[in-house]
């Protein structure tokens, strides 16, 4: 009985009932996407890049301050 139910659900999934853009786990989403609070894989706010550009901007700002003193 359980095996038949499982096969039925798997068949539904094969017919398109399953979605790859829904998530409950962060690892459900492909690289560059993040799992939102609504349970959908969405593009990360920073575009999936690291915080390195922000750090660079901070260093530049600091250099300007140093240069001005």
């Amino acid at each position, binding site marked *: 009985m*359980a*095996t038949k139910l*499982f096969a039925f*659900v*798997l068949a539904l*999934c094969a017919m398109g*009932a*399953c*979605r*790859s853009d*829904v*998530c*409950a*786990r*962060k*690892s*459900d989403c492909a690289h560059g996407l993040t*799992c*939102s*609070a*609504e*349970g*959908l894989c969405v593009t990360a706010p920073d575009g999936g890049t690291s915080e390195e550009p922000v750090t660079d901007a901070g260093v530049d700002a600091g250099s300007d301050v140093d240069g001005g003193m």
Partner: protein
Amino acid sequence: MRLALIILVLSAASAHADPTAPLWDAELRLGYGLQVSSGDGMTAPRAAPLTVEGLAAFALQDDPLVYAYAGGIVETLDRSAIGGSGGVQVESGPMRLRGGAVYFFAPYTLFGATASGGGCHRMGKTLRACADVALTEYFAGTDLVQGHAATQVQLVLGMVFDGN
């Protein structure tokens, strides 16, 4: 599921001890199925990762036949993670039920409770082929989105090597 558990426990309790029951066994399990998220937002199913599990089970008592099991588990196909699992297993003839816990520790953490039920077919003196339906609820860990839980339903195929 609850009815199956009651039937298995009652039949196991009324059965005589099996003198041929192994004291320990080792099992390789492959599981694949569906995952449904619970919590706010979307609840549509999606494919679950493929799990590969290696377990060892040791008999705790023979009437009814109860084993404690533990081993390692990996997730693969669309991600890579490694962890461990453990719990207890009740057997009655070719049927068996399991309940336990799953813990992934790298590269993220994930805690879950699992239950499975199924049967085995003897392929030789020390070899059995088994099929189970497993239900796993992941409820904590760094991989979960806050406010969500993930429920996995898997068909698990296993090869059991009986000890003595």
